[in-house]
């Protein structure tokens, strides 16, 4: 049992990271911190892919002519793409946060909600632009 836990330590780490990231996204009201959480969450998935490509004792898949065990390079390549996607997401998210800060004057979710509520109310009264 303990062996099984320890031999799969990479999965435990990944699960912990994943839950941590999700928790941060859900619980933090600060928009930047949410993006940090999202990053942690995504990183855990990157680790999942990278670790599953690893073959114990395997080396990088470079053909040297000798019979060697290779790690599976495919997940690593996939994750390169995923990292790029992650960076783009982060950049876009941060850009949005900048614009939100410019229009609302805050990046705290609660304050934004309050000012949106009052805007909603004025919409219903029909005095919108």
């Amino acid at each position, binding site marked *: 049992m303990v062996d099984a836990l320890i031999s799969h330590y990479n999965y435990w780490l990944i699960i912990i990271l994943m839950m941590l990231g*999700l928790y941060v*996204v859900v619980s933090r009201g600060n*928009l930047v911190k*949410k*993006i940090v959480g*999202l990053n942690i*969450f*995504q990183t855990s*998935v990157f680790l*999942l*892919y990278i670790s*599953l490509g690893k073959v114990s004792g395997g080396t990088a898949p470079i053909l040297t002519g000798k019979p060697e065990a290779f790690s599976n390079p495919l*997940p690593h390549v*996939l994750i390169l*793409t*995923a990292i790029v*996607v992650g960076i*783009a*997401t982060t950049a*876009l*998210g941060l850009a*949005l*946060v900048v*614009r*939100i800060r410019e*229009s*609302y004057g805050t990046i705290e979710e609660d304050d*934004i909600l309050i000012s*949106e509520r009052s*805007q909603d109310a004025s*919409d*219903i009264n*029909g005095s*919108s*632009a």
Partner: protein
Amino acid sequence: MNFIMPHLPVLQVAIPLIAAPICVLFTFGGHRKLAWLFTLAVSWVCFLIAGALLSRVLLDTDISYAIGNWPPPFGIEYRVDPINAFVLLIISGISAIALPFARLSVEKEIETDRHILFYTSYLLCLTGLLGVTITGDAFNIFVFLEISSLSTYVLIATGVRQDRRALTAAYNYLILGTIGATFFVIGIGLLYMVTGTLNIADLAERLQPLSDNRVVHAGFAFIVIGMGLKLALFPMHVWLPNAYTYAPSLVTVFLAATSTKVSVYVLLRFLFTVFGPSYGFVNLTLEFVLLPLAIVAMFAGSITAIFQTNAKRLFAYSSVAQLGYMMLGVALSNIPGLMATILHIFNHALMKGALFMALGCVMYRLGTISLGSMKGLGRSMPWTMAALILGGLSLIGVPGTVGFISKWHLILGTLEAGFWPIAILIVASSLLAVIYIWKIVEVAYLENEINQEKTLNEAPISMLAPLWVLVILNFYFGIDADLTTWVARNVAETFLGGGS
């Protein structure tokens, strides 16, 4: 031509993808109109390609295209069969119809110096959606999904000129959309772990003996949840109303008509091609998770829609309900049910496209789409409002419209599955649609105009023409449903035949 024909699958995606950076070049000199024309031309080319692909798959056989000549399952395969050719046609068709409408709408709603970048994002979004649909590689789906999602966030945020809430809507969608896509990619990873392949056809084969494997179950769950988020399956729909409401009109038209449909398609693909209803856990999920959620969505969406004061938000909630119908058809997993889903993917694109386009016309003239400001609009904008009402009738499912065709099959599906109480629920939820459509009718036709002194004109012809094309299609395919039902039956039989 003979040189191009075999490469159509890759051109379908490559053309808009290459067009996007070219479009940016129009910034030098600020040729806004040229950028629009260019996007329009690209959309039409995509539409023609999709049409050619569909006719080829329907009349001939499925197409398998190996990117870079790497044979599947090693290389990335683009695989075209009736279902995704049909979805490709919907996406590119809506884009081709929506873009003539776009110029004036974008002119009005988006800051002038952003137009060219706007069209670039639009092209990327189109690329993404087409790519998700055409590819036969699971990881490739994720990549294209993110291309479309990222550009969608940008497109939604450009609504900031009308309302600053577009920014928070885009931000929230970004957070939830990313979580959804990441869930999806976890699921793919887990499946890769046990099968060692990413090719969809290959996955389906290698999963056959693994139906009791826990990892497969977990992967399946992640994929369903991830796609559920992207397609706004109740209760994961919270991002949708704000995103639709505050996005620019063109973006709402395009997204409402296409993006959730693409996610429905991906879900269908995984449920029926990769796994198949014969797997016990798939069946359980369909019956005990998707079925109840779909029914709740039908009602929650419609009831919430009744209480909205913003017309766009009203129809956004109605979309949640309509996605419920699509999911119900999936959950029934019999031929008429699946046919209803596939028909509704097409039909709902037509009706929501028309409805949001009509609201775009209202926005163009009025600058707002709150119901309170639409009083008496039936008199000053008769064509727009008539289109809105006709689209609404289609949404209700009045006979003679496309909505009726999909509801008919859905009810047949429930009766065939023996769930007759659900048939009554479907009917009851259509009646809720009557209520919210009639709210608009009363405001538009039975109220007096608020500001009598300012006379409003009808929307310009370049916006009305595409709108009415969609409205007429709503009725055309409601009366002559041969083509659509034929495709839907074809697809439904493939899905269910392959699975069992």
